[in-house]
């Protein structure tokens, strides 16, 4: 995680400095900037087995996690938009108690932040013994609370724990 942030910052500012102060061989636009940044990250990724072995396997999972998260964001936004624009409410708001497998501070913070950033769900509080996360959700399929919990646990939490552990 720390290595990923450092590499991302190096790639981002490297691409910025290359296009601002160097003599770039491409015309500047957004596509080439992203291509150069991805290229720098790829070079850094190839050097990682010498000092941080697990990062070498984790980066593809991280990319798939980000893509999955963006897809969830757009899909949930469209669902909420449909509910706003049609006259009847389809939603059944529910507060579910989600049992947490994440234990450290950073995992809980990341998980609740990601749950809050998805429309239609809002993480309200963590219980005092840090075992349960209370989540306010709008859409429950077939009134099945266990199914909704399993969806969040298998979708977000499993992928997040694969990255941080």
């Amino acid at each position, binding site marked *: 995680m720390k290595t990923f942030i450092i590499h991302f910052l190096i790639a981002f500012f490297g691409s910025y400095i290359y296009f601002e102060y160097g003599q770039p061989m491409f015309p500047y636009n957004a596509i080439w900037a992203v291509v150069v940044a991805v290229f720098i990250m790829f070079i850094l990724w190839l050097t990682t087995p010498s000092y941080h072995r697990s990062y070498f396997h984790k980066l593809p999972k991280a990319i798939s996690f980000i893509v999955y998260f963006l897809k969830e964001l757009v899909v949930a936004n469209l669902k*909420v938009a449909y509910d706003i*624009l049609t006259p009847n409410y389809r939603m059944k708001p529910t*507060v579910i108690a989600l049992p947490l497998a994440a234990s450290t501070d950073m995992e809980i913070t990341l998980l609740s*932040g990601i749950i*809050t950033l998805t429309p*239609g769900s*809002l993480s*309200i509080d963590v219980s005092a013994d840090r075992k349960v996360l209370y989540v306010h959700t709008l859409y429950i399929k077939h009134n099945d609370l266990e199914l909704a919990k399993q969806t969040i646990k298998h979708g977000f939490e499993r992928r997040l724990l694969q990255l941080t552990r």
Partner: protein
Amino acid sequence: MLEDINFLLIREIISSVLIIIGVMFMLISTIGLLRFPDFYIRMSAITKGATLGLGLILSGMGIYFNEPDMFLKVVLIIGFTFLTSPVAAHVIGRTAVRNKIPFWDRTNLDEFKDYLHKEHNVHRDHERDNKQV
């Protein structure tokens, strides 16, 4: 071949499409802010729509200007909004629960009763303490 393409026109088209989609998301979120019946539903549905719309508008602007400086600033703004919006939503939601803002009457609160009971008892303890002092 490459010189024949009007790059400015292509950038303008991409930028217009992104801005229109972003503005639509923002308009829909604002209509929802007026329409939804309950504070928590508004909170969980609205703020994120606005964040996504803002991201789309800003990236459209970055593509139109096509300069490294502008790209850096746009990525900074998008990063700040995506970092701070869930934290603000979480803090406001928890404050609302502590202040006994009522839920919608169709909300299913079965698993939340223990927490609410405990939380409101804590409140009563505090009020009693204040009276004694």
